[in-house]
């Protein structure tokens, strides 16, 4: 019995001693010799291959810098990053997006990129591409990896099949929108719907912006939430009408699709069962692949009739450097390569959005075709008419929105548990109380 216990103890001791030697984590701090930086990003395996190619080219160009990568899917990425932040082991370079980037900005976890101007040249980037990631004194905490945005896409095959005219997307009104959607549902006899009911706040966002209001903060940060519940109620009323008229799929079907993660293959749009749908525009090529034919990105309805223009383009993700990095120069050099190098840009293509650096954009566009080109064109058209800036949300409100504030209010509405006014009030209330916490 003593022998056994001794054996166990010995095994434990051996394990505890041996394994730390194999463990490694922090980047090494060799003064001479290659420097190793850690780069974390999210994405799928397809993006991984492209990214690795870029990294290989970078390491060939800068043999003194080694890049270690860690990748995960979007949801896991946020979890891992925050636990790393809690233990003080953030990577050197990381991809970021709102809303969680605000947390990192607020707590000083990100490096002000203007302090790395020797290695990182931001001059080619338009000022408003930084609007989401500006600090209070104008510090730039991250640089855009590409712009994209949510927008409506039309399935021409569906319109054609049921003999419905495709509206002119530069002049159509919300009534035209409603009419087209209704027509498709009626003429297809239930096989297809006009509008794919949207579980997120994007369409509502456009409607509210058209009234000169927005979900984000007012100028200078006040008020924390800059819209009237009545304005939002107007949209919800409109949407409810569409549902009741049968112009959309049913609420429970919408719920099912959204819980499935809104992948292109499962979408009604790609299955030719919906005429109009909101999509994340940088996924256009995936939707077209799933559909087997072209889809048509369009501008928002009601733009010319409303007091202001509601459409917007924003940055789809950013690249940031940890404020506590042991190798700011190496990290900045790497970031500079990723966002300014034309070859790197062409390899990644439009995978993360339309490059904001005009030189990179030109190089990439020479190579694009098909869906990617249509995506880039949509961004261009949207930018051309995008007269209202995109105001960032208050940190707390952004978190609340991201954690389902709109979805819950919306679900209560469409499942008959609250009226449009109540739902709008509930949503606004949740954002406001989160903003003050």
């Amino acid at each position: 019995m003593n022998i056994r216990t001794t054996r166990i103890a010995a095994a434990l001791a051996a394990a505890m001693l041996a394994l730390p030697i194999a463990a490694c984590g922090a980047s090494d701090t060799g003064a001479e010799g290659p420097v190793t930086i850690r780069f974390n990003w999210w994405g799928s395996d397809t993006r991984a291959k492209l990214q690795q190619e870029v990294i290989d080219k970078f390491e060939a160009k800068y043999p003194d810098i080694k890049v270690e990568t860690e990748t995960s899917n979007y949801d896991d990425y946020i979890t891992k990053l925050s636990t790393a932040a809690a233990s003080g082991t953030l990577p050197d370079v990381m991809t970021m997006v709102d809303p969680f980037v605000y947390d990192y900005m607020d707590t000083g976890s990100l490096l002000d990129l203007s302090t790395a101007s020797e290695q990182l040249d931001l001059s080619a980037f338009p000022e408003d591409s930084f609007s989401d990631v500006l600090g209070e004194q104008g510090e730039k905490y991250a640089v855009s990896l590409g712009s994209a945005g949510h927008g409506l896409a039309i399935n021409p095959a569906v319109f054609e099949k049921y003999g419905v005219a495709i509206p002119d997307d530069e002049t159509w009104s919300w009534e035209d929108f409603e009419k087209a959607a209704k027509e498709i549902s009626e003429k297809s006899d239930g096989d297809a719907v006009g509008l794919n009911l949207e579980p997120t706040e994007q369409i509502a966002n456009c409607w509210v912006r058209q009234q000169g209001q927005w979900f984000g903060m007012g100028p200078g940060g006040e008020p924390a939430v800059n819209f009237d519940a009545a304005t939002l109620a107007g949209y919800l009323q409109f949407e409810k009408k569409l549902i009741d008229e049968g112009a959309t799929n049913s609420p429970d079907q919408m719920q099912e699709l959204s819980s499935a993660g809104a992948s292109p293959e499962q979408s009604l749009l790609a299955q030719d069962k919906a005429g109009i749908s909101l999509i994340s525009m940088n996924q256009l090529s995936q939707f077209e692949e799933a559909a087997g034919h072209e889809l048509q990105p369009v501008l928002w309805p009601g733009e010319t009739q409303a007091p202001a223009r509601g459409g917007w383009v924003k940055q789809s993700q950013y690249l940031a450097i940890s404020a506590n990095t042991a190798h700011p120069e190496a990290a900045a050099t790497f970031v500079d390569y990723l966002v300014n190098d034309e070859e790197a840009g062409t390899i990644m293509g439009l995978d993360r959005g339309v490059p904001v650096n005009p030189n990179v954009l030109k190089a990439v566009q020479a190579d694009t075709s098909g869906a990617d080109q249509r995506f880039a064109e949509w961004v261009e058209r949207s930018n051309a008419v995008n007269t209202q800036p995109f105001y960032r949300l208050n940190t707390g409100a952004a978190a609340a929105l991201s954690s389902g504030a709109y979805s819950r209010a919306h679900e209560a509405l469409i499942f008959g548990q609250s009226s449009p006014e109540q739902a709008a009030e509930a949503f606004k209330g949740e954002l406001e109380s989160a903003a003050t916490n």
Partner: protein
Amino acid sequence: MAITIADRRARAPREPRRPATVQARREARAAHLFMLPWFLGVIIISLGPIVASAVLSFMKYRLVGSATWVGLDNYARMFSDERLAQSLKVTFVYVLFGVPLTLALALLLAVVLNRGVAGLSIYRSVYYLPSLFGGSVAVGVLWRQVFGADGIVNTFLGWFGIESTKSWVGSPDSALWTLIILHVWTFGSSMIIFLAGLRQIPAELYEAASLDGASAWQQFTRVTFPILTPIVFFNLVMGVINSFQNFAQAFVVSGGSGGPTDSTLVYALYLYQQAFGPTRDMGYASALGWLLVFIVGGLTAVNFALSRRWVHYDN
């Protein structure tokens, strides 16, 4: 507590060979050695984080940035937290129906299979298959294929002339039930445990009982069930505890939201959202964790107290 009953029974037939103090010392030494790994585990692995989480429950901590003391605010907040109330409601329904259904099914099939059936090991494997899925991404997808608007259930109903395009996973009135069914679908692990327990019952007892003219039902109630009670108890306690902590299934089926309209927001999912969701407040999540300990601890204590009435140890 159950230990006391066993203690009392064990103390009776103590042999008088060695003097009590030597015996006690030897026993204590053995106890130290056998409990050593567990004690090390407590000290090194579990105690620190448990204390830390208790302390965190009095703080506001968003992982990024530092923690600030807020005293009892987190606990006070629980009383006005509507989503918490909703999640408690959902979870109680989930446990109330999920656990007994699962246990009954597991016990029934374990008994049937234990009787000896051709192809026993195949059945056993097949029934256990669903438990192998865990909280994988595939499960959510599969469940929508079954209970979705275009799913198997609706197709099945169509065969009987019932036209249905309702999405069972997407409707507030049925989503939780699809989750309960998912829970029951994974009854395999409880069944395995029952099977292992059934194997410990001596065949002689069945022989004797049948020779005494007992029917199958009587054999079950007089022989099988009494001896099986420690295992039933284990499955019951663990079933309750696990259902309260079960979050993966709700997560993949609802896409992480607990929807529609929070109808599938089981407690563990709500806690996860508070801990790692965008509003990320580890302090509040810790407080929720400790609330769960009290609730589940209370239920377990009730289980233990009631167990005196129906659980038999030591044959």
